[in-house]
Structure formats: C-alpha cells, structure tokens
C-alpha cells in the first residue's frame, strides 16, 4: 500500500491506529470521572452551606466537629511519626 512494504505500512499506520483505540478506550473507561467529580463537588458545597447555616443557628455542626477531631488526630499521628523518624514533609521544611 502507498508503495511501501507491508511491515512499513503497519509501522506508519498501525501504531497511530493503536493509539487512537487506546485513547477511545481511556475516554470510555473514565467517562464517570467528570460526572462523579461534579456530583462530589456539589455535595461538598451543599454540606458546607448547610454547616454555615447551622453555625449561624447557634450550635456547632456535628460533622464539623468530627472533621476537626479527625484533623486533630491526624496531626498528632504526624507528630508521633515525626518523632519516630518518618517525618511528614510539611513539618520537615518550615516555610
């Protein structure tokens, strides 16, 4: 084809075809990435606004307490790791 030996034709046209198929496969397999991220962002936004309105109402929102407790726990874990030698990066290098 095109005056080329079959092996060269495969090299010139076969590889691009493989990459087209790979790209199409990638788009199909990851079709949920955009939708799920949007859903998660909307959910997170809704939770944030709910927590803001609850805060205005007086009592601290429950999930906020949970997340601060979790963050607190993570910090103390990081500190103990740090003392144990495996220091997390942001502690190693103060900015």
């Amino acid at each position: 084809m095109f005056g080329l030996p079959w092996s060269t034709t495969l090299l010139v046209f076969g590889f691009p075809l493989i990459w087209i198929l790979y790209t199409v496969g990638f788009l199909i397999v990851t079709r949920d990435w955009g939708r799920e991220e949007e859903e998660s962002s909307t959910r997170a936004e809704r939770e944030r606004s709910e927590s803001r309105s609850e805060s205005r109402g007086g009592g601290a929102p429950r999930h906020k307490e949970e997340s601060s407790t979790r963050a607190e726990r993570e910090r103390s874990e990081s500190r103990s790791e740090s003392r144990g030698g495996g220091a997390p990066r942001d502690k190693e290098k103060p900015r």
Partner: protein
Amino acid sequence: MNVTVLAFLVLYYVVVLGIGFWAMRRGAGGGLEGYLLGGRDVGPLVTALTLQSTSMSGYMFLGAGSLAYTTGYWSLWFAAGDIGGGVLNLSIIGRRMRKLSQIMGSLTAIEYLEARYPSPATRLIAASVSVFVLAFYVLAQFIAGGKGMELVTGLPYAWALLIALAIIITYTFLGGYLAVAYTDFFQSIVMLVGVVWILAAALSHVGGFTAANLALAEIDPTLLSIWGRDLAFQGQWGLVAGAVLVFSAGYMGWPHVVTRHMAMKRPETARLAGAYATLWNLLFVSAPYIVGLLAILILPNLDDPELAIFQVAEALLPAAVTGIVMAAIMAAIMSTADSLLLQTGSIASRDLYERFINPKASEQQMVWVSRLLVLAIGAIGYVVALQEPPAVAFVVIFATSILGSAFAPAFFCAVWWRKANTPGAIASMVSGTVVSITWELAGLAEPTTLAPVTVGLFVSSIAIVVVSLVTQSSSPVPAHVLRAMEETTRLGPIPREMMAKSDSALRPEAEEIASLLEDSDQ
C-alpha cells in the same frame, strides 16, 4: 537575509511576548503556586498543548528530519511511540499525580518526589540529576535555535547563536508557568500549521505519497524498510524498543513535562487533555519525519541533514509562508527551551539552594539564584554549541533516555504502588541514571543491540521493586503518605482536613496551629 521571512519571525516574537505579558499579568498575585503552577487552574486544551509543545522540541524539526534523511523509514519507530506519549502519560499518572501533589502541597516535580518518598536524599539526588540533564537537554535547543537563525538571517553561526540564545533567555525571564503555558498553547498551533504546510508543499512537489515512496525505492529500496538504510538495524529489537519507549513510557519521567499534571485545573482534566494530546500528535508527530524522507528526493545532496526541513521550506515555499514555517521551528525550540530553563531554575533555587544551602532564602534571592543559573547555562551552552556542536538528535535522545530511566518508575510507583518506599525510589533513580549514561558512553548499544533507555528503564524498574520489598520492614511507607495515596484512588474533591494541611495558601495557618499544639504538648 530574506526580509519577508525575517519580518514574519519578528511578528511572531512580538505576538509571543504579548501573550507572555498578558498571561504574566493574569497570573500575578497568586503567590509561588501561581508562579510555578499557574494557580493549578489550567484547562484540558491548554494542558494538552503545553504538554505536547514542551516535549516536541527543536528535535522535531532538526533531529527528526535528519534521522529520516539518513536512516529512512526506520526513524518512524520514534514517531510510533511519540504519538501515544501524551495520552499514556495523562492516563497513567495524570489524575492521581494532580491530586497527590495537591494533598502533599508540592509545587515542583522534585518536591513532589521528596513528599512521596520522604528523605532529603530523594530531593538531593533527583534535583542534581534533573539540573544536570535538563541543562544538557537545553543545549540541543540552543544549537537548533542558532542554526535556524543562521539560515534566516544569513549571519555567521556565532552571531546567530548569540541572538537565538539572547531571545530564549530574555523570554524565559518573562516568568511564570502561566506565561509559559499560554505561549506554549499559541506556539503549538503555529508548529502544527507550519509542519502541515510544509508537508503538503513537499508532497505536492514530489507527486504524492505513493509516487514519493516509489521514487525513494529507486534510489535505495532499503530506505523503505523498517530496519533502516542498508538494513543497518535488521533484527535489532532492543534498539527498536528503545526508539518506541523513549518518547512514550520514558516520557513519564521528564520533570518538566509531569509538572503539567500538577498544574491541571482538576484531576479529571487529564481525561480530555489525553484526547486532545492524541489528536494533536496524530496531526503533528509523523510529519517532520516524512518531510525528512521527502527531502532525499527534493534536496539529494545536503551537506547538513539537520537542515533538511529548513531547506525544503526555503526551496518550496514563498517567502511569507517560509516565515511562518521558520516561526514554527523557532516555536518548537522556544516552547521547550523556556520550560527547561524555568524548570532547571526552579529546581536549582527551590530544591537545592533553599532546601540545602539557605533555608531562610527570601523569594527574591531564590529568583536571583534561578536567573543566575539560567545565565550560567546560557554561557556554557554558548561555548559548547560554538566549539563542536553535537547533533541535536543525539543530545535529545540521550538526555530523554536518562530522564526516562531515572524517573519514570519513581513517578509511576508514586501513585500506583503503596509499597514503593524511599530506599526503593533512590535505588531506582541512581541505577537508572548510572546505567543509561554508562550504556551510552561505553558504546554498549551497538554490540548488545539494546538502547540505553531500554536497559535503563528495565534496571530502574527492577531496582524500585526489589529494594522496596527488601527494605519494607526497616523503611515502611509513612502513614500520612498511605492516607494521601488512598485519597488519590477516590474520585471527587480532596477533603477539607487534608487540604488544610497541604494547600500552600493555607499552609502558614496550618503550621501555626501545629506549632501551637506542639508547644502546648511540651
């Protein structure tokens, strides 16, 4: 000197500088994250095109044309891997690296490696290898720029090289990732227009693709073979694998390219960017090789095959169009050179100077370190490029082979393998660098028929797996890294409590709280 060609080239520089200034103003005020990563706000089209134009350097117009002119269709093995390099990179590490780098609060590719494989040694080794190899890589862009400028202006090579160097360095000082990304975007379009134009003109001149192949077969039938002119590479699958791997899998190890993942607007940007990258590559990548082949018919007695594409353009196109093609060639050179210099400068200032020499360095001092290094690279590059300029294809393939061998397994395992630990990553980076350099300098590729990148990638991959497994009990992966990796497997935004510790905008606040807690503990 052709005034019309020169006028188009000047017009091109004015437009690029204009876009650079606009992007710089747009990105101003975003702090260090804004400067180095464009505030992590780059969309899929710009991500894809900056990724591609950065990786397609002056090599595509000088090296690729020269390889095709001298070896025939064998050179298309390089294009075979290159076409899929963008989508492979984005699909395998793009989304996860974007997320992990933000959780870790990393702004450079080397900082990211240290965050994932915590140890000062990780950073010292990665930064040293990167600075050395990227500086060598940028040398190829200087040589390409000098040769192009010599042809356009008619000035002696020494002056042409000096002008090209001055333009590249001034342009890099313009500053910032956003300026680089948006000028790359424009330049990728110029490159595409230029290469398609010259391919169409060359095909029309020789009577079409089939007629060209038949004419090549009359000169030497082995030019059409996948084993190269005179079947010089017959059965040498190790070299073929190297040609395919260097611009596909090896591409995942180039620090100046993977930084593009970290700057994406959202992790899912990788998806569309992958599709755009493939589309652009399908149109662009094979064209310079085909023009190099057609140059055998159009200009059979070229003294310097590296100038094949330049001279085909001059021979076939009207001056105004030659100006556009020349602009495309300079675009390819500059879009890579600025990224390489920006990356080398930021690694030297942030990952070496601030991290190991002067931890209290101000941002202004770091900018000066970065600029001084860029000037030093320019001065050394000028002397080397003037004395005995090596072939552009050799420099680019050698440099990218080292980068791929040294870093691709470390970047890959950073997001995909929870057991990949610090000793494993260090062993991988050191062995990949040493093996690929030794293989090339000792001339082992020919007797063994194995390309340096094939051996380098194999050895560094084995090293990260074996050393990580052997040292798993003595150097386990820290819990905070495992938690961050776990988060990258999930779709959706990063939880606030993880962001608070990592987002550079919130970092001072988070560190203040942490230090207060530490004080109260004591």
